[in-house]
């Protein structure tokens, strides 16, 4: 049996955990730089506030309805996420954290459980009790069915936070009430193409012939069809597969025109990418470096350059140096830069490297190991490449930030005695 557990409106809900004054109010959370709405609590959803709408467009509506606005408090979300995952981990023998608020479970030695519905509630109650976060729990015989059951547990009427697909009836009931794009792995484009064939919901998709699906849409859809029929195709190891591209990009809190400031920002993104690349034991072969002003500006300016490393590397110093090589072709005086970023678009595995007798060693695993260790121990940014010096200008704008209730002693909640 597989399970998928995820939190309901995680960011918005976390904001309520340590702030009793907003527990019964509609809450929305804004993205980086307070740009768009990225999370709405159920109360805010009832007001009809859509996700991903720019904040300035809905500002007066929010004020009219006394909606509480928060900037993304990543320090707090990371802590609550870890606590939630630790509680969930107690209930299965294998567990994979899929995202900040989602976790897959695999039950291999759990033959003793005969009522999965009840077991789901046991997990739900424990997470609620210990972290005050509401979660949806879905069980199924494949990862895709577990994901479908999880969807049902939260979105379909008649379910109370737990859904189980363990027989034909439950499978048919849930899949026939799911739209195609609610099925894991079916994006909006694929959904459109499938609907042209006359398919309407997940159950229709499950009843297609896997062979013909493979012919028309490729092996991914074939696997999805099999998974929807209870045949496990997705390997447990595959859900945790390494990322094929890694990006670090952000818009500036204030526009940047200065050459050095832009270079510092790009260098800082480069070192973030390098860190993430090392974490999954990859090496960067190709890097894309870009910067732009806003598409709403009069003269839209966007420059993006690809840099190829002669030898793939995970060395922060080499990766930051690449920025200097291409910087002159990106920067233009007079442009008010709004956004920039760096992305590793071609990665290689560091364990299987084809060596070349003319290669000069560019990697310095020992230095990078200690670089990462120091930053882990003393907080990221403790050691930084000098050119990536931080500046307030491009720090995130977070005007509605809640306190770091669990990570700073000066911000722990006040309790009236």
């Amino acid at each position, binding site marked *: 049996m597989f399970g998928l557990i995820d939190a309901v409106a995680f960011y918005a809900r976390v904001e309520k955990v340590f702030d*009793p004054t907003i527990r019964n109010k509609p809450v929305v959370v804004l993205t980086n730089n307070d740009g768009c709405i990225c999370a709405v609590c159920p109360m805010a959803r009832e007001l009809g506030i859509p996700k991903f709408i720019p904040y300035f467009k809905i500002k007066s509506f929010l004020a009219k309805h006394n909606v509480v606005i928060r900037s993304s408090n990543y320090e707090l979300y990371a802590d609550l996420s870890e606590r939630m995952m630790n509680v969930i981990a107690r209930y299965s023998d294998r567990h994979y954290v899929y995202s900040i608020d989602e976790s897959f479970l695999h039950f291999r030695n759990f033959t003793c459980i005969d009522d999965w519905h009840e077991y789901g509630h046991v997990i739900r109650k424990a997470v609620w009790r210990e972290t005050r976060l509401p979660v949806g729990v879905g069980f199924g015989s494949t990862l895709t069915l577990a994901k479908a059951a999880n969807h049902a547990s939260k979105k379909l009427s008649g379910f109370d936070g737990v859904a189980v697909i363990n027989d034909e009836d439950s499978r048919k009931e849930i899949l026939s009430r799911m739209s195609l794009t609610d099925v894991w792995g079916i994006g909006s484009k694929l959904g459109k193409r499938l609907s042209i064939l006359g398919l309407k919901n997940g159950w229709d998709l499950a009843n297609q012939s896997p062979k013909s699906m493979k012919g028309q849409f490729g092996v991914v859809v074939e696997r999805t069809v099999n998974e929807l029929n209870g045949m496990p195709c997705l390997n447990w190891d595959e859900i945790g597969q390494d990322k094929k591209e890694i990006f670090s990009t952000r818009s500036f809190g204030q526009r940047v025109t200065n050459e050095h400031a832009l270079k510092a920002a790009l260098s800082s993104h480069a070192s973030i990418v390098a860190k993430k690349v090392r974490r999954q034991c990859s090496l960067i072969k190709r890097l894309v470096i870009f910067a732009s002003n806003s598409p709403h500006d009069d003269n839209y300016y966007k420059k993006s350059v690809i840099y190829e490393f002669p030898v793939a590397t995970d060395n922060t110093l080499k990766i930051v140096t690449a920025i200097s090589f291409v910087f002159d072709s990106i920067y233009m005086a007079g442009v008010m830069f709004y956004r920039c970023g760096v992305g590793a678009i071609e990665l290689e595995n560091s364990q299987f490297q084809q060596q070349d007798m003319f290669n000069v060693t560019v990697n310095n695993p020992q230095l990078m190991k200690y670089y990462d260790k120091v930053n882990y121990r003393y907080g990221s940014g403790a050691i930084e490449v000098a050119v990536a010096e931080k500046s307030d200008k491009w720090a995130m704008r977070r005007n509605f930030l809640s306190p770091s209730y669990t990570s700073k002693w000066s911000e722990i909640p006040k*309790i009236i005695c």
Partner: protein
Amino acid sequence: MKVIPVYIEAGISGFESPAAEYKELNLSLEDLLLQHPNATFFGLANGRSMEGRGIFDGDVLVVDRAEHVSNDSVIVANFNGCFVCKIIDTDKALLLSASDEHKPISISAADSFQIEGVVNVSFRLHKKLPTLLSCLA
């Protein structure tokens, strides 16, 4: 993972410490004070109504959400949108103070009330740290 570091001794390097075999992990305050680390948060006491139970203004409360609540437990609750620390009387649905100057508060259906956790531990810094007090401001 808790590991006791043991250093390998090689070569001619004098005598091994006779105490080496007896080395243990150092004391950890977290081990002592936190029963359920995942379910625990800290808060700062503000007010004097719990002095009879040894909780003074400016003390740090260790609030455990996983701990069982029973009659007469010291709890932290969300009472009408405010975190309060009181003694719970589960029989009569009262929030009691540990001080003569504060009357019992009865919890009615009109109140918004949720128990957040149990306070089995609180501690006091006899020399106040400015960082801690700044959240009372």
